[in-house]
């Protein structure tokens, strides 16, 4: 698995931990269900903590908890599902989340220009993807009409 963070190819220290699997020492990403069920243990566990939001998540439900997370992962089930674009935008511009927002799942290179603009800072790639081309695509269009985060 390759990772692009802030437009650079980098090592991924994070891992998504399935709900029934024990946590790693550090850099755990957990589901929203696990967070709501095991909140105290997760906070006590220490280290860097990330939260995965599915596309049907309601961001407002976790707004009070944002200070616990260094990363929010927006998981895109299918590339046509554009809800994550709004989640990223609202997390950044309304709720002031300044940690890493990453996307995973079924997005494509031709969407990173938009995702970058709504505030996504890292991208999980497949091994077959050409990371440099993906980074370049973020600059496909050099000017813009709308306000945006990035």
């Amino acid at each position: 698995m390759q990772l692009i963070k802030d437009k650079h190819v980098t090592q991924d220290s994070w891992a998504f931990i399935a709900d029934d699997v024990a946590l790693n020492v550090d850099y755990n990403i957990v589901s929203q269900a696990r967070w709501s069920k095991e909140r105290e243990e997760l906070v006590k566990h220490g280290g860097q903590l990330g939260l995965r939001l599915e596309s049907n998540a309601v961001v407002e439900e976790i707004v009070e908890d944002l200070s616990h997370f260094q990363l929010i992962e927006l998981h895109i089930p299918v590339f046509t599902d554009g809800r994550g674009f709004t989640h990223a935008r609202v997390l950044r511009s309304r709720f002031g989340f300044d940690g890493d927002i990453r996307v995973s799942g079924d997005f494509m290179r031709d969407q990173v220009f938009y995702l970058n603009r709504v505030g996504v800072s890292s991208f999980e790639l497949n091994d077959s993807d050409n990371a440099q081309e993906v980074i370049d695509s973020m600059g496909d269009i050099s000017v813009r009409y709308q306000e945006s985060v990035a």
Partner: protein
Amino acid sequence: MYQYTDKDQTIIDERVTQFRDQTERFLKGEIPDDKYRALRLMNGVYIQTHAPLLRVAGPYGLLSSKQVRKLASIARDYDKGYCHFTTRQNIQFNWPALERVPDILGELASVQMHAIQTSGNCLRNTTSDQLAGVCKDEIEDPRPYCEIIRQWTILHPEFAYLPRKFKIAVSGATLDRAATQFHDIGLHLVKNDQGVVGFKVFVGGGLGRTPVIAKMVRPFLEKEHLLSYLEAILRVYNLNGRRDNKYKARIKILVRETGLEEFTKQVDAEWALIKDQLIVSEERIEAICAQFAPPAYIDSAAADTSYAEQLANNEAFATWVKHNTADHKIAGYRVAYVSLKAPDRPPGDCTDTQLDAIAGLADEYSFGMVRVTHRQNLVLADIKQADLFALWQKLDQLKLATPNIGKATDIICCPGLDFCGLALAGTIGITKEINESLDSMDYVHDLGEIKINISGCMNGCAHQSVGHIGVLGVDKKGEEWYQVTLGGSSENDATIGDRVGPSVSKQDITGVVVKILEVYIEQRVNEDESFLATYRRVGMSPFKEKVYAVN
């Protein structure tokens, strides 16, 4: 008209480069079909029965003569010598080769045109009134606001992957000629009690398989809040619109399932959080309005006497003026329609030769501008009355002066089974048959104002459900059949047509339309009672009886 800034030009140039790369990657097998499909649709490319179809944006229907000439050259060089104007004021090419589409987009970019977001589940081309800026019943010219919306919609990063397509229309006149109540968002420029002009906002209208009349969500929106309010609606829709079933994914279904009150509450709550961050400044509005300043009208235009003489002496000219021109707000000027509904041509089609000639007429008589109407005709909006006779003669030679605007043979017709991969039945052939049955122009004029709309499937591209007479192609055991509706309207009195009864076969459909017109003639109080008014008064029964009578 609006002239591109460097920023506008850069966006469309870079978009061409981006799409060229995407298409090359697809042709090399590097992008899977389903993903390329989404990308090409957002650049106006459909894959049709015979070849790709390229839909080019006609921003709120306004084209310069230079742009029209470019359409002509594209039709000649990349297509079979014609193009097609659509009900959303766009332009379609039916026969381009996929690998040459990036070149066509490059050609379009050279004249400030593009095909961005003319298809796909995204914010589409904003449409408007073809008489904007020249009609007498206007509160304010809607085009500057269309342009502001155009810029906001193009490559909006948050709303590029919506549940379904999203269409916005703006009307600035008291008579709604832009079918705004059948759009996802319809905006009417209105004046409030204090004399301030703002927008009345409608949401959730649409045609297609579930026609719905839009609901009013805000009686008065200040201009400065235009974009924040649109953004609030789109954000609520993007998060909550259904994504599990494409037939239930339009915002009209969200509004219905959420309930208007609750939906409006959600929009208002979202809007309250963003309205102060996304203000359209007065300076911005003024700057854009300045680009739509009225052309240099001549004060003495009304002093001309030749027009009255020609009207009195030439019956054919007088007939054309009566049916194919409209009043203009400036004395001595008229609006001239260019009929793309000649009896022997598919509705809305225009050849390269005609396009070039129309561009020339626009330069000579109408400040170099052409408009596209939502009934698939063109308009030369600013004709001095002294020029009308010469214009008519030239249009007549080009077969663009059929005096049938708003009449029974001014049929809205989708490409149907002849071209479209979705169609279940032919439409162009039916239109031709109806034309042949109504070969007496006197009879067509006697029938008066009547809108016949014919779609080849329930996606309803030809707006059959709001036709005074709507014809919808259906499939019946592999055969082409047609359902007929009566009494629809897309104007202020927005109405969805009523179904007459069981569908009729291809061989009977033209006869059915003819019978319906005969019933109207029998039933009307007098010549001043229109088809729609008569239908509303007498109801379905007399029509139904005649259509299904056993001979």
